[in-house]
């Protein structure tokens, strides 16, 4: 196996707090993690879990209390490492007196491109993130979603090998989120490594080869998303429309709820096929069958509250 794209070794960050700044609060506790080249890696955790702290440590924006990290074999304090990475900060804010075109041109100047190459890239990436028409609008007039797109464009403008995205879907409408997912897919197809933090479990499920779950500054587990999520499926939701004049089977009628003209019923996973057979027998029109999972928020609450139990359940590759 080659050099990992990201190698984090015992990274710890303490912050001083209080008036005299003598009390220390641990924001990240001995994080050890490896991300392979070409992986899309999700970094999950509730607010205050230490996700952004980790990203900032890797970007050299803050310094670790202890531990170290390497990106493509280069130490994080090596300036050359920054040529190989792209970074979208959480809730990005850019120079609002610049237009999107000027902003990308500014960032492209740090990548040794000729003026013609710079121009070509700026136009290509404005187009890629759907900002071609707003390219000459000052960023102060941009919506949150547009800023996020500009942020993504600057992160991938120089074709980095490892892309760090801190909450990339934040502030985006469904179309924008889909576009970001497409970009992440594209990066993966090009063999790039993507490390992104998110609160949105479905995004992690759809995109990630592996995810890490962080809570209270500690790594709770690393594994494929389905390994973490599948254990949480505790029911199946069936949405259907009943045939006029046909009564529902007793086993279903008892737990059905009417939503407009549709009926929703939750059954245990083991009873799904029997329930579907019963509905078919009474000629109901099945609209959807969806696994019922707790929301990520529920999951995080559980994590924080019952750290040990959950860490046992999700720890796929204990480190």
């Amino acid at each position, binding site marked *: 196996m080659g050099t990992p794209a990201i190698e984090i070794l015992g990274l710890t960050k303490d912050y001083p707090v209080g008036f005299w700044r003598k009390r220390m609060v641990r924001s990240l506790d001995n994080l050890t993690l490896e991300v392979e080249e070409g992986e899309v890696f999700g970094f999950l955790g509730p607010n205050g879990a230490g996700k952004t702290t980790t990203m*900032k440590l890797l*970007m*050299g*924006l*803050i*310094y670790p209390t202890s531990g170290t990290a390497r990106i493509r074999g280069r130490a994080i304090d090596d*300036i*050359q490492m*920054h*040529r190989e*990475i*792209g*970074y*979208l*900060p959480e*809730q*990005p*804010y*850019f*120079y609002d*007196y*610049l237009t999107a075109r*000027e902003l990308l041109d*500014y*960032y492209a*100047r*740090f*990548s*040794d491109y000729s003026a013609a190459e710079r121009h070509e890239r700026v136009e290509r990436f404005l187009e890629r993130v759907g900002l071609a028409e707003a390219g000459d609008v000052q960023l102060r007039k941009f919506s949150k979603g547009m800023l996020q797109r500009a*942020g993504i464009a*600057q*992160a991938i403008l120089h074709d980095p090998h490892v892309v*760090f995205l801190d909450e990339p879907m934040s502030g985006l409408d469904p179309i924008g989120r889909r576009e970001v997912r497409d970009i992440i897919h594209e990066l993966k197809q090009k063999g790039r490594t993507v490390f992104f933090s998110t609160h949105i479990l479905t995004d992690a499920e759809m995109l990630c080869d592996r995810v890490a779950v962080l809570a209270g500054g500690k790594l709770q587990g690393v594994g494929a998303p389905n390994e973490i999520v599948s254990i949480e499926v505790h029911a199946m939701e069936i949405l259907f429309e009943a045939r006029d004049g046909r009564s529902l089977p007793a086993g279903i009628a008892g737990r059905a709820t009417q939503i407009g003209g549709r009926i929703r019923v939750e059954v245990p996973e083991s009873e799904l096929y029997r329930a579907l057979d019963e509905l078919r027998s009474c000629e109901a029109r099945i609209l959807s069958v969806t696994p019922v999972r707790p929301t990520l928020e529920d999951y995080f609450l559980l994590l924080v509250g019952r750290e040990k139990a959950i860490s046992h359940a999700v720890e796929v590759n204990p480190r």
Partner: protein
Amino acid sequence: MNVTPAAVAINTFREAVRDRVLYNLVFFALLMIGAAIFVGQISIGIERLVIINLGLTAISIFGLVMAVFIGVGLVYKEMEKRTLYSLLAKPVRRWEFLVGKYTGLLLTLCVNTAFMTLGLAAALFYVGRPFVRSDASILVAVYFILLELALVTALALFFSCFSSPMLSTLFTLGIYVTGVFAKDIRDVGELTNVSAMKTLTSVVYYLVPNFHNFNAIATAGHGNSVPFSLIWQNTAYAVLYAGVVLLAASAVFSGRNLK
């Protein structure tokens, strides 16, 4: 060639020229120079002296206001608004960022000072006075103002690396005022005959930048020439002092955790 500081400098310059506050300041400076014409007209016999004195003073004061108020926000604003995050994730060293910010503001100050100097030249031209060889001292006085602003900007940038704009303004202006009166402070110390006071005022004299030496307004007003030795001494002094302050700023900023 390292293009990073240049790119940051151009962006800083662009920020400044797109700020309306800057234009207001330049407008008021030109207004003051214009007012000098009026004051000059009622100052019988010393019209030239009044216009040059008031004009150069306006250039100095408004330059100082710009250097301090833009300078104290140079780094702080980037940290506060988190625009630094995406920039420092690029191959940009922190000292390169600082040098770029410093150079960008200096460029802004040079352009503004050039505009204001043109305003002063226009005022002198308006009162119908032909330009003579000794007017070169006006340009020297403007050059000294720029050196002074280079120092003030370095100080403002230094404080901007670790304190809020309000505190940075107080610190910078405090050092500026102390620097203007550095020689007087030392003289007061000499007069006290208290050795501790003598030592303290001497330390202050050598520590703070001696801004008094950069004031050639009166010399220019009277049409006297400025000795060449003073020009190069002031240049060397400003370059060295600003260099040391920038090094200190770089050391402080490089060790900072960005919140």
